[in-house]
């Protein structure tokens, strides 16, 4: 298929996974606003913005540290707006939905009409909304609906998309985005556990993460009701059976790359396979015995970024030189 179309599908997968991921954590945060302490609320916002590698556009909110302040309940309206509807923020739900749809619009001939209708319908449902529209009604339901939109879209993909490269690139995009976001999230969570700033945090935040990524029932089954941060971390990072774990995503990526076979730019294709091999080995075999988990997560984050770059260079933006197949 056309390299640009494959690139577009890859990014549809990435953008929609980001919508789902952000929506899940926003739903969690909206729940926290109801009955959590100020430091838990502050931690929730900080976790969201830091791991998404973004910052609010509002200057007062950006410089909270300088003022010796924190993000509390009163800032939540603006912060929620930032991650939901602010188009200038590349991680906001509306921005990611728009970009995902724009990619789909440019390659409607590569996707099924049912996929397009599903995505379009979901987009038009939120396009004209603002934070005011959802804030006083049921913000949690709004975010839950966005998760459902993405899940429905992925279900329609699974039911209607031809299982050739189109499917593979869409899935690779989705899985890489998931792996990168989860690595960043786990990295932040792990650093915070060790920091003085959040030493008073209870286990709420670990438990909420398990719930957020549908790991709570499996956790209770294996470890009981008591929260052990290291068990939660191990589960979300290295559990081979949990669909939202990092290990699970990495292994899926390895399978997809293997299904694609040789890349047009051999060197980058080989590098992509090497990086996914390293990532899989790191998470599966080195993680359990690693003493410095933070270092390992940082290393995995940088490897995942390299993996993305090599995939792009191997299949999408390859230079025409001797290594390219005619």
């Amino acid at each position, binding site marked *: 298929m056309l*390299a*640009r179309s494959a690139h577009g599908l890859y990014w549809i997968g990435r953008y929609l996974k980001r919508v789902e991921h952000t929506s899940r954590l926003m739903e969690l945060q909206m729940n926290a606003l109801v009955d959590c302490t100020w430091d838990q609320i502050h931690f929730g916002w900080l976790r969201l913005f830091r791991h998404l590698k973004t910052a609010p556009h509002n200057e007062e909110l950006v410089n909270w540290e300088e003022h010796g302040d924190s993000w509390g309940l009163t800032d939540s309206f603006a912060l929620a707006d930032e991650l939901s509807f602010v188009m200038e923020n590349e991680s906001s739900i509306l921005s990611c939905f728009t970009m995902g749809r724009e990619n789909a619009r440019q390659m409607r001939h590569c996707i099924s009409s049912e996929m397009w209708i599903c995505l379009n319908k979901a987009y038009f449902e939120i396009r004209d909304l603002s934070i005011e529209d959802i804030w006083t009604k049921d913000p949690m339901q709004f975010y839950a609906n966005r998760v459902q939109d993405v899940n429905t879209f992925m279900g329609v993909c699974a039911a209607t998309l031809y299982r050739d490269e189109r499917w593979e690139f869409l899935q690779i995009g989705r899985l890489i985005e998931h792996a990168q976001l989860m690595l960043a999230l786990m990295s932040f969570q792990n650093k915070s556990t060790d920091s003085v700033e959040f030493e008073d945090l209870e286990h709420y935040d670990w438990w909420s993460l398990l719930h957020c990524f549908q790991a709570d029932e499996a956790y209770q089954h294996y470890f009981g009701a008591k929260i052990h941060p290291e068990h939660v971390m191990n589960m979300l990072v290295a559990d081979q059976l949990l669909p939202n774990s990092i290990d699970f995503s990495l292994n899926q990526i390895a399978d997809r790359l293997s299904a*694609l076979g040789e890349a047009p730019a051999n060197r980058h294709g080989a590098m992509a396979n090497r990086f996914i091999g390293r990532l899989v080995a790191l998470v599966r075999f080195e993680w359990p015995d690693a003493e410095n988990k933070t270092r390992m997560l940082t290393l995995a984050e940088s490897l995942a970024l390299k993996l993305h770059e090599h995939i792009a260079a191997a299949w999408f933006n390859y230079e025409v030189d001797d290594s390219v197949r005619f």
Partner: protein
Amino acid sequence: MIQRIAALNKFIVDVYGSAHILADGVIPIDHVRGCPQYRIEMQGVSIPLDVPVGICGTDLVRVGEGFRVLEDNLRVPSGVSYMIANRQATKTNFRELYRKYRVRDVEKYGTLLYETLREFDPNGSTDPCIVLLTPGVFNAAFYEHMFLADEIGAELVEGRDLLVNDGFVYMRTTSGLRKVDVIYRRVDDDFLDPLFYRRDSILGVPGLMHAYRKGNVALVNAPGTGIADDKSIYAYVPDMIRYYLSEDPILRNVETYLCREPEDLEYTLDNLEQLVVKPVGGSGGYGLFIGADKTTAERDEFSKQLREDPENYIAQPILAISRAPCWIERNIEPRCVDLRPFILTGKESRLVGGAFCRIALPRGSLVVNSSQGGGAKDLWVVKN
């Protein structure tokens, strides 16, 4: 229409080849060679199948009892997707009515287009690699490009997806570079190849014309076809039909005055109130001067402009174009309509039984162009 496109194709091949029609004085040489649409790069180029215009959209209007050709669109005619979309809308919303009549099918257009494009393959293979070249998502006709690519099962490519190597055109795929045989191009000549035409074009493919001239890729339509749909050449189409086909034209032109001719210019200036004056290189209904809609002062001002640059204009009588009932703001009102049937020509000419039917939406307007807010209707050609 088949007669007309046959003559137009012969004309284009002739003017870029031996130019017999010019040598025989049927059309003045300066009208052709001085036309901005004449592409000198096409001189001596062997055009696949001797068919430079594979896809033609001819604009027809009904005046009184007969149809007249308003203009031929021979470069990148658009609108065919609306013809099909309108039909699908009608079939959905007027099921019973549609079922009652034996309406000719327009939805097979995609199949006919594919068959036609396939015939242009320079290698003559049964399964050539066909792509549709679009300027991109910001082009007003992008929906149509996507629609047609889907209909014919071709990749929808932009200039950046193609490259030329050793005189062949390739597209970047996820399996490497794939040789392209036929390009259905929806990019204007000027932007097609920055090495030949506009140097600042980022829509085209550097070296594309080189590959085309070597016969390694087919471009449909060929570059330079605009020479035959220029408004100043339009007046000669009946002569072309007689010259190349030794037949009388079946479809009539609209009477046309070439302002470059002194007699025609004087007639135009004297009768401006009854005429519509058009710039020869214009399209989309832009730059029209409809005398009847203007004040005396405006006509005087335009007369000066006409005298200064007569070669740039033609004039035609204001036609009483046929009207059709239209649903306008909850009322049925008459509106002017025209038809754009699409003629596909490869080894043979093919048509579907329908046309893109355009409407001038403002009351009393004669301008049907989509780019100026024109509407559209589903047109039924009913079987006997």
